[in-house]
């Protein structure tokens, strides 16, 4: 009702029509930004009104057309379909300003925010059921990717989303495929892209200059995430050395060796082949490491199945590192509590459920990305707020979420946008199964929030500049 009246008043003020593809959405506001552009929250107008994350790829400064990252992400997401992988709903092309919009099913949470909430607000760890369910679902999605010759190459907590929607509440979604690659028969070595993976989650073979990317680099990252879910802080929090070429990451290796001990030829036969191993001889082998032991850092009994699984994920030798399919069969997932589809709420709860906060939404930024000078006009959105409250089991809000009518007016100035709806191409392209899978990429959100909290023990962390790598 309110939306209708807003729409009518806007149309009377403007002579241009809203772009056709945007008319199917109600824009809510900005929820993130990053190297490649903004991320907006929207909602579909037609029932069922489900939340959508719209990720905008802006034109690069050089005017070099669609970025290879966007093409790659869309190509892969168009091919894959899995409950634990983010779902790309639509791609919209704006021919007027050459921008590109990706519409994803919206995910309310990500592991980064969940861990931060437990560390800063709750004060204690995630319960065993939730950790196990999150990990199992992450491995389930990763096994699907690896089975299709896709390595993600940027697994970290902020890229692991969890759904808040009623139907898919608590389901894990792997997101952000901008660095993902098919490694079945690459025409070039994958290392030619430069070093990828955020440094805290980077496998030791990559840190030592390996040119051979395998799915094992993803499994190391999962091990780091597993430990972080247990301890609520990054396991190997090193400072990244920046340079134009592939630099020797001494500090990150130092952080790893202090916990896991120094690698040896006995345990890692191919270690001598790695380019940076000679540097290691000069810088690290001279040091004596009193390894504190992984079990002491994560506070796990060395004989427990959880520790066994974690240590196999953090195996130095990538050839011996556990695979996703092997991990899914590990004893850790066979003992009580068994992992479930809803990672937040067990079918027979043994502990009190934790209610996580929703993402902050900036309603002052219009769709073009400029901050509005006028104050936002609050429009009653009781239904939406009610739905949100019901979905998350939270108490009613003191103030309803405002809808910004100003956004709509500015949007109408855009012309020439074309909507590309995949179902229309059913004849020549495979239709993506219409499962209700949702999710969105989160590096932008992470970047924004980390800027807000510089003193949270992450002062050494610098967000990667992806454009330079590509």
């Amino acid at each position, binding site marked *: 009702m309110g939306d209708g009246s807003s729409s009518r008043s806007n149309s009377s003020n403007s002579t241009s029509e809203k772009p056709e593809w945007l008319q199917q959405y109600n824009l809510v506001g900005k929820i993130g930004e990053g190297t490649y552009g903004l991320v907006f929250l929207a909602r579909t107008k037609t029932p069922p009104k489900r939340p959508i994350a719209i990720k905008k790829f802006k*034109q690069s400064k*050089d*005017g*070099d*057309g*669609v970025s*290879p990252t966007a*093409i790659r992400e*869309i*190509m892969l997401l*168009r*091919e*894959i379909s899995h409950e634990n992988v983010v779902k790309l709903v639509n*791609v919209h*092309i704006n*021919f007027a300003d*050459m921008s*590109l919009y990706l519409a994803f099913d919206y995910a309310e949470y990500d592991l980064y925010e969940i861990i931060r909430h437990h560390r800063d607000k709750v004060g204690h760890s995630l319960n065993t059921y939730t950790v196990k369910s999150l990990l199992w679902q992450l491995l389930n999605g990763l096994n699907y990717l690896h089975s*299709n*010759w*896709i390595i993600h190459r940027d697994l970290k907590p902020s890229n692991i989303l969890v759904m808040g929607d009623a139907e898919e509440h608590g389901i894990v979604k792997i997101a952000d495929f901008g660095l993902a690659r*098919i490694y079945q*028969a690459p*025409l*070039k070595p994958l290392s*030619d*892209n430069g070093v990828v993976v955020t440094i805290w989650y980077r496998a030791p073979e990559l840190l030592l200059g390996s040119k051979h990317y395998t799915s094992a680099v993803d499994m190391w990252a999962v091990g780091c995430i597993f430990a972080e879910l247990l301890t609520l802080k990054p396991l190997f929090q090193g400072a990244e050395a920046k340079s134009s070429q592939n630099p020797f990451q001494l500090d990150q290796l130092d952080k790893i060796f202090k916990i896991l001990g120094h690698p040896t030829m006995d345990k890692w036969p191919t270690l001598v082949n790695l380019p940076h191993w000679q540097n290691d001889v000069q810088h690290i082998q001279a040091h004596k490491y009193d390894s504190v032991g992984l079990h002491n850092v994560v506070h796990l009994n060395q004989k427990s199945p959880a520790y066994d699984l974690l240590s196999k994920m953090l195996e130095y030798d990538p050839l011996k590192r556990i695979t996703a399919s092997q991990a899914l069969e590990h004893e850790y997932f066979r003992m009580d509590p068994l992992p479930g589809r809803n990672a937040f709420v067990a079918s027979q709860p043994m502990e009190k459920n934790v209610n996580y906060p929703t993402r902050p939404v900036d309603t002052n930024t219009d769709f073009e990305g400029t901050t509005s000078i006028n104050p936002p006009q609050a429009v009653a959105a009781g239904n939406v707020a009610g739905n949100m409250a019901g979905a998350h089991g939270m108490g009613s809000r003191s103030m309803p979420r405002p809808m910004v009518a100003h956004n709509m007016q500015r949007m109408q100035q855009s012309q020439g946008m*074309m909507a*590309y709806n*995949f179902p229309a*191409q059913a004849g*020549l*392209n*495979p239709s993506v199964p219409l499962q209700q899978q949702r999710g969105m990429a989160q590096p932008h959100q992470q970047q924004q929030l980390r800027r807000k909290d510089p003193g949270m023990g992450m002062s050494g962390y610098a967000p990667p500049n992806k454009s330079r790598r590509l």
Partner: protein
Amino acid sequence: MIYTAIDNFYLSDEQLKASPSRKDGIDETTEISLRIYGCDLIQEGGILLKLPQAVMATGQVLFQRFYCKKSLAKFDVKIVAASCVWLASKLEENPKKARQVIIVFHRMECRRENLPLEHLDMYAKKFSELKVELSRTERHILKEMGFVCHVEHPHKFISNYLATLETPPELRQEAWNLANDSLRTTLCVRFRSEVVACGVVYAAARRFQVPLPENPPWWKAFDADKSSIDEVCRVLAHLYSLPKAQYISVCKDGKPFTFSSRSGNSQGQSATKDLLPGAGEAVDTKCTAGSANNDLKDGMVTTPHEKATDSKKSGTESNSQPIVGDSSYERSKVGDRERESDREKERGRERDRGRSHRGRDSDRDSDRERDKLKDRSHHRSRDRLKDSGGHSDKSRHHSSRDRDYRDSSKDRRRHH
């Protein structure tokens, strides 16, 4: 599976005959010629941009796919070829700047269409418009592909197939050349790359008279069928029988696309001259200038021309040396003849092919030589007939090129 989309982008020959360009009134001959021309641009442009061959291969496949969905009348072949090689450079991890692509395609246009070589001002309005057009076309390509641009090439299978069949090493280069040339045709949108690979292996084996096992048939081990292999060979033979592809403007709005900013002016001038029939001296001067330019360009064009000729010659040789007594080849011939008889529009070519067949059937003797000469003479005659309908300037340039072609042919024969 990951390659599902590719397996869905295959069309039958009948579907291709009902292409968007056909619906816009462009005849089959013109569409085939422009597809070849666009692929030539992608190949040469990729070389000038110092790109690896995989980029040009991917670009040509995207080009062929795009014109299965969009009309040549609405998307000019030159800008689509430029955007395809640009997009392919991104997909194959060798991205090039838009500026580099525009400079290369502008230069190729000047050379191929006898326009004066001009400095491309990167701060002029024309350059900005070209960049916008390049990006716009890239998005159209991505949209029509549904953002699924995975490409598999027959080259990937050739080495394995030849090794499995234990063939002599000279077949590899021949098959590779045939695979490169197949990208100029619509084979990549009609057959899986494994089938095209079997087709070029078969054609190479026939050229070198290498027997391949037929009991059991070797192609079944590679998941291909004989009729498809025969069609691959037929399409390649047809490709080698065609004249060198030229640019033809088929734009619906009547305004041809150009990278050059002077092309429009020169057209205006020629229009003015047409309106003044009494200006005989001016026309003569233009011819002289054109001739001079042509001489200069001939020197530059020789190498790529030789390359093209070598490629065609390779194919021709492959056709002209059938395996004597090969029953499967005879069956193939029968099929070819039947297909030819079904096509009324290709009567002229049918006659050509008929003569070629007779020439091939007989032993090598003076009769065959005379047949060859007749074929070439007839071929050129047809070209001249076509050109006489167009602009006189164009006609003269073309005939001049024809003369050069004849001279180089003679040189080659003498060399042999």
